[in-house]
């Protein structure tokens, strides 16, 4: 079953609902389907292998996604924020391709042989003039989406999600047309992020109107949310803090908002606490997943949030910093470096198995023969089965033969009043292999000794940073992921 069938079903049943845009002039599911079929006709005529989309989120994005599915071609939304040369290299890897581009992106990429461009702004108008294509013979094995993941070393890897991965995730976790008619979701995550793809598929299948914010600013987000009376929203953690600032400044409580889910990076507990206090009528969901797992594999539900906030024991309260419990449609376990299953409370690598898990890349698969996939995330399950993610395996500091997770130390340091932000990395050390270095964005003038004592007191002496460095800011990407390797590279260079 291909993803376009999700839209066909929505077009049959979702009559009277708006699929994307405002209530006044948005597109219906039937409109979306008809446009997708016509764009598919254009794609087929071009005789390309792939379809790329490089530009801000817009109604053309779901059209391009479904058109690619109908034409049977992989769809690759690209990170338009990359430097020009890097962006061009990605395009070259997927030529011959049909390219749906924003004008400024088209200028930056320039002409490339094997790339056939259509301006995103022209897409829907041109589609109107074309006939509708029939969907190609379906096979759920076809690659639906190619997403380039940022590699820690070398070239980005192209993660491949087949139709069956995406479809099984959608139909086994959602009720078809389960959204109430007035529901609308504000999508502000970029189209080249797995969450941007799954937001389209789940919104369409549920019948929930998509409201798109192409370029994020917290002011625009708040205004659009209020104007469109959005009931649902999905964002990355760095966006939430900034939105809360605006809400507080304006005294806006977004009374229509019912549901806010966040993911794609670590959410500081202080931010989510603040959100729970400022928006008590909102259900919060923390969704953890990877590109390779077709998005969400573990969820901290609204009740989990409330229970943790009100809990009596430290263990239960700590769950506010967890990513909740794995989806019932999956198996998830923690394994040590030898591949042995470890028990509750023990830190190791997160492994997962299930129908939505791909683990495949162009050029190879990380999926084991028995279907298990190593996520390269470091974490543990507590006694009640709640998953805590410490960080990437690659970020683990190995000091004197001990594995140390930077996240643990960062959480402690972040608690200090004079610490606005912190990143802990390992730098090469002749004696210990690696030494612990804390890079702190201060608020005031914290004393290094005081900070070290804080860590010593709360964790243990082997966790105390040997060096503390103060910086004005830390490097993040636009979806809020801390770029540790950039920090490490800068610091290694200096020292």
């Amino acid at each position, binding site marked *: 079953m*291909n993803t376009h069938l999700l839209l066909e079903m929505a077009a*049959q049943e979702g009559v009277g609902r708006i699929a994307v845009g405002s209530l006044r002039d948005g597109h219906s599911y039937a409109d979306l389907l008809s446009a997708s079929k016509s764009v598919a006709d254009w794609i087929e005529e071009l005789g390309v292998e792939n379809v790329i989309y490089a530009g801000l989120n817009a109604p053309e994005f779901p059209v391009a996604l479904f058109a690619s599915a109908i034409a049977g071609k992989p769809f690759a939304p690209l990170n338009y924020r990359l430097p020009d040369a890097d962006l061009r290299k990605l395009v070259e890897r997927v030529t011959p391709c049909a390219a749906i581009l924003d004008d400024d992106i088209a200028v930056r990429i320039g002409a490339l042989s094997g790339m056939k461009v259509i301006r995103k702004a022209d897409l829907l108008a041109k589609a109107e003039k074309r006939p509708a294509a029939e969907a190609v013979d379906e096979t*759920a094995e076809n690659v639906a989406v190619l997403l380039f993941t940022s590699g820690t070393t070398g070239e980005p890897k192209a993660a491949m999600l087949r139709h069956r991965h995406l479809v099984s995730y959608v139909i086994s*976790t959602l009720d078809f047309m389960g959204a109430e008619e007035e529901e609308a979701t504000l999508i502000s995550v970029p189209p080249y992020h797995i969450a941007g793809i799954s937001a389209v598929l789940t919104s369409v299948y549920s019948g929930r109107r998509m409201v798109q914010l192409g370029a994020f600013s917290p002011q625009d987000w708040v205004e659009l949310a209020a104007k469109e009376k959005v009931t649902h929203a999905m964002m990355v953690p760095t966006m939430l803090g900034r939105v809360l600032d605006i809400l507080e400044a304006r005294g806006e409580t977004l009374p229509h908002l019912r549901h806010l889910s966040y993911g794609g990076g670590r959410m500081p507990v202080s931010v989510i606490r603040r959100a729970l206090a400022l928006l008590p009528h909102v259900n919060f969901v923390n969704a953890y997943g990877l590109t390779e797992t077709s998005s969400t594999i573990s969820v901290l*539900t609204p009740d989990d949030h409330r229970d943790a906030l009100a809990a009596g024991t430290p263990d239960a309260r700590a769950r506010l910093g967890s990513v909740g419990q794995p989806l019932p449609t999956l198996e998830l376990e923690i394994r040590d470096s030898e591949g042995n299953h470890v028990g509750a409370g023990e830190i190791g690598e997160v492994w997962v198995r299930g129908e939505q898990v791909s683990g495949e890349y162009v050029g190879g698969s990380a999926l084991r023969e028995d279907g298990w996939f190593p996520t390269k995330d470091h974490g543990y399950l507590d006694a009640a089965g709640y998953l805590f993610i410490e960080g990437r395996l690659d970020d683990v500091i190995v000091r004197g033969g001990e594995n140390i997770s930077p996240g643990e130390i960062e959480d402690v340091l972040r608690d200090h009043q004079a610490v606005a932000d912190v990143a802990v990395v390992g730098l090469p050390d002749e004696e210990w292999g690696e030494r612990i270095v804390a890079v702190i964005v201060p608020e005031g003038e914290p004393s290094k000794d005081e900070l070290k004592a804080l860590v010593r007191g709360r964790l243990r002496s082997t966790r105390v940073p040997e060096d503390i460095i103060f910086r004005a800011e830390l490097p993040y990407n636009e979806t809020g992921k801390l770029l540790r390797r950039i920090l490490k590279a800068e610091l290694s260079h200096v020292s």
Partner: protein
Amino acid sequence: MKLTPGSRWKSAVCDAEVVAVRTPAGDVVLACGGVPMIPVKDARPDMPQLQSAQENAALLGKRYADEASGLELLCNKSGKGALTLDDRALTLKEAKKLPSSD
């Protein structure tokens, strides 16, 4: 007939269409309204169509399962007929609903 995951079938006696999500091995009879279903791309045979909806008629968006064989289907078009596998009535399968996360 042999059912494969992702294969699409339509009723011979009404409008119902389904997609096979999980399939049993071997030869089975997937029927709608008592008549074996046909591949969606095949021409519909000349047969009297169901006049009124049966109990448990196939509904768009619902998932149907047969515990004995492990079959799971998604109905992508409603119809008057009810679904059976080897004459066993299929049961409705609930989605393992989660709070929306995307």
